[in-house]
């Protein structure tokens, strides 16, 4: 990924995170790391978002919420699992109400481990996600031309 023509917008959902990763997602957007200067905006609307940042693991109560947000997002879209709970359920993997990582509910493109995930790791994952987004956009375009 050498350049981008558009700034991606992100949507954040706290699956069953302890908040640690959530506040780091916000910290990445705020002064200090300040990715908003590149036009990366945290939006509350799934239809506006290109990148879905999920923190925390999946449980029985929120699995349908995660699927719903993912379904509402418009192609091309990228899912980034932020923090070790989102990757594999981490320290809570044997809790009775935890199903597992986010990949149990929706396809995940980039995994960003850490407890709590550091803002640098989130930024790194989002940058990787941009590459995936680019590829997906190209594939969509090719598909449309072919059709």
């Amino acid at each position: 990924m050498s350049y981008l023509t558009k700034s991606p917008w992100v949507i954040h959902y706290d699956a069953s995170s302890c908040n640690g990763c959530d506040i780091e997602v916000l910290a990445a957007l705020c002064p200090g790391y300040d990715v908003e200067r590149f036009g990366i905006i945290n939006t509350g609307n799934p239809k506006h978002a290109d990148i879905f940042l999920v923190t925390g693991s999946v449980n029985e109560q929120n699995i349908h919420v995660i699927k719903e947000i993912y379904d509402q997002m418009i192609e091309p879209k990228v899912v980034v699992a932020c923090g070790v709970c989102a990757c594999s359920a981490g320290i809570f993997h044997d809790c009775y109400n935890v199903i597992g990582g986010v990949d149990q509910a929706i396809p995940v493109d980039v995994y960003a481990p850490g407890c709590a995930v550091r803002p640098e790791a989130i930024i790194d994952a989002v940058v990787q996600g941009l590459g995936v987004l680019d590829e997906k956009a190209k594939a969509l375009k090719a598909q449309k031309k072919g059709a």
Partner: protein
Amino acid sequence: MGKATVIPFGPQHPVLPEPLHLDLVVEDETVIEAIPQIGFIHRGLEKLVETRDFNQFVYVAERICGICAFGHSMGYAETIERLMEVEIPRRSEYLRVIWHEMSRIHSHLLWMGLAADAFGFESLFMHCWRLRERVLDLFEATTGGRVIFSVVKVGGVTRDMTADQLERIKTTLEGIKGEYAQICKAFLNDTSVKNRTVGIGTISEADARAQCMVGPFARASNFDNDIRALGNGAYGDLEDFSPILDTQGDCYARVKVRALEVVQAIDIINELIAKIPAGDVAVEVKGAPAEGAQTSNVLEQPRGECYYYALGNGTKNLERMRMRTPTSQNIAGMTTALAGCDLADVNMIVLTIDPCISCTER
């Protein structure tokens, strides 16, 4: 009056960093009733005491909540120390309180930022989080972590602070004070901010008492229940400690109480740094909690009183660990404050209780 309509609010909502679902029953623009639904973050971690031994569980307790992380590890460790009758070195008690008050500063600044975001004051939000980064830098320098520290253990703390580090904390916090005063001015004197907060979501003192509200939410309604005044641990060595109270009970009062508590926390840290005794920071803890031994403990977290209960069974694993966290106490107060408010004020009221859902649901 029109027909009652139900508007679902959450679990995914721009104003909420955490999932909470409210069914808002509205008539025209007025909220008649708010019915909360929780459980989106329930992990069931209290049950993990059966598979993790009491030393390992400190790290699970810390991950109850990423904002009050230090408070939970401290509260849990204090409970186990009380259960096993372990006396920890005075220096480690001081260090714990210094870190805990730093967490209070970071938690309140975080909350003030989110509140500013809720009433649409984006630059104020950014300024609060900019100051908060400086506190997180202090955490990183002294513990190695930004939000999860893993620095508390049963029997003390795992790291000491050098004189240089203590000095750095002091100078950084003094440096923050000036900029913080400007932010406070915006929160407390700005007309557009006051329009969103004054007289909104008022809770009377009687209601606050009847619903057992805790923390700054209750103190804004003149309900004095600050656990720090009991003088547990190093809090007992403070010259004088008087909780910050307000009588109005509206959103403005809640902003004000938290705004002043940040300054109070800086003063507490300065006082403790001046007084901190030398010595070890941990003692070795041997054995296991006795069978049937039980104890309880309270700690004033940034969001209010948190209650811990532990029951031993003679093994390294506890029989039962129970926490009652501040937000679960405050949800009743929140629904009372929401009844009768304007629909546009819902996000302000929900935020001013400083909800911490991952604490509530564990």
